[in-house]
């Protein structure tokens, strides 16, 4: 600022004296030195704001991490026996109640529909199929209706055929399935996984999310779910 004033004075010369000669010299701030790029006041202002910002971050970042940490929790693999092999047949589903979240009582339970693999559907009769009761539209509880051989959702009219493929209604993908295994003649049910419209297994998605193709990127797999079988 002082520099520009000097230049103006020189260019104007003595002929056009805009400023009376008795004008006081411009006051310099305390601590001013020649060639400074920043006033002392500004240094302290920026420093104070930086300190305040750091103090705020120290409070907010851990709190935020605390709140969003569950997104990154890796799931424990949990297998539950649902009955001996003889309980299940290839041509209809048996409903079984399993616990998907421990320690929260009734709210942690869910119904699964289990059957033996059917050779008519090109499945291995030594395998067992466990289909979730959670509708692929928005998560309402579907029921297997034996007379129709279909899964019907009570909320928005979604219906699925015997293999869980969408027949009618708003669901975006076939019904999810659970991994199964046989241990000592007992059928056990493991982590849930989703399937594409061709029944290829993919990592578990929430209801309402498409699977397969570009949707695998638009609805990215979450670290909180088990990998696909």
């Amino acid at each position, binding site marked *: 600022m002082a520099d520009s004033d000097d230049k103006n004075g020189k260019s104007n010369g003595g002929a056009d004296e805009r400023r009376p000669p008795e004008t006081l010299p411009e006051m310099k701030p305390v601590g001013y030195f020649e060639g400074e790029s920043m006033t002392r006041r500004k240094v302290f202002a920026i420093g104070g704001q930086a300190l305040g910002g750091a103090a705020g971050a120290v409070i907010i970042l851990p709190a935020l991490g605390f*709140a*969003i940490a*569950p*997104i990154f*929790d890796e*799931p424990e693999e949990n297998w539950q026996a649902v009955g001996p092999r003889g309980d299940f047949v290839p041509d209809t589903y048996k409903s079984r109640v399993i616990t*998907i*979240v421990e*320690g*929260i*009582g009734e*709210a*942690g339970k869910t119904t699964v529909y289990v059957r033996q693999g059917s050779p008519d559907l090109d499945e291995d009769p030594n395998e067992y199929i466990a289909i979730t009761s959670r509708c692929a539209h*928005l*998560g*309402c*509880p579907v029921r297997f209706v034996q007379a129709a051989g279909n899964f019907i959702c009570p*909320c928005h009219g979604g219906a699925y055929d015997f293999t869980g493929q969408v027949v009618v209604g708003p669901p975006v993908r076939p019904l999810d399935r659970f991994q199964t295994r046989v241990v000592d003649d007992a059928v056990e049910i493991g982590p849930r996984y989703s399937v594409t419209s061709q029944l290829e297994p993919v990592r*578990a*998605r*929430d*209801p*309402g*999310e498409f699977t397969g193709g570009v949707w695998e990127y*638009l*609805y*990215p797999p*979450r670290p*909180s*779910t088990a990998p696909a079988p």
Partner: protein
Amino acid sequence: MSRFEKLLPPPMRRPAKPGEGDGHVGTNGKTSAANGEVTALKEQDGNGARTDDAGARVVEKAKDAPADLVGWVDERMGGTSFLTAMLLRKVPKGTNWFYTLGSATLFAFVVQALTGVFLAMYYTPSTVEAYASITYLTNDVFMGEFVRGMHKWGASVMVILVFVHMARTFFFGAYKYPRELNWVIGVVLLILTMVMGFTGYLLPFDQRSYWATIVGVNINGTAPILGPYLSDFLRAGPEFGATTLQRFYAIHMLLLPGAIIGLIGAHLYLVVKMGTTAPPWIRADRKPKDARTQEVDAIPVATNGHRDGSATTNGADPSDDERAAR
């Protein structure tokens, strides 16, 4: 002094204009210039003349106590100038009952806040005990059903009022310059009210709450890319889990009320600072009153002359597009 002003304790009134009032100093050392009706109150015992009756003196003193208390606080806090400026501010011509919708919404929020505090005294945010605590407070606690009912129905009332208030603002054009920021704050408040409704719906933890929350969280999850993570954040995990209910409870009763109160403060500040708009059917006075009365005959009328009554029954004329239906 307006009738409304007489209801205010003396320190909150506007001071008398110079030359008004008698400069009389009342019993408590205040000039009665600004509060002539204090004298009026005392007229039953002789125009403020003091009596020797001790009982009457106590009564007289007691009458001034509220004013004294307000004065004492105001002397130390100085809030009355702010209050008078806010309460006695000018409002435009044509202000009507539609302008009370914002206050009605605020009142609905206050009801929610108060009843919510008392509901929290009995509520247990645990998946195992929540439903039992709700049935207990509804059926066994004295007036529990009433307080819970106020909170439950008040929630719907608040959402409805928010929308009606918003519609008023929209149709009166009150969102326009320079009040856009207040509209934006209002929209954020609308969203927060919706989130309030969503998180509060889970808390009774009956079948309807549970499935509505499952569906609501899954609707959130259908947003591409971030949706699945938003669902995980809301549920605190991949499934409805042990801390989901507590998370909703904390958002419902701690996080959102704080945010809403802060934003309501900003909203009201802008209302007072900007003033309210006149209804659209009130026309602005563009000229001083005297000038207007002189020039009223010179205001040009519509070109086809129907306003002055000379051509109110024009025949059908397709070439005249002045009055085509628009």
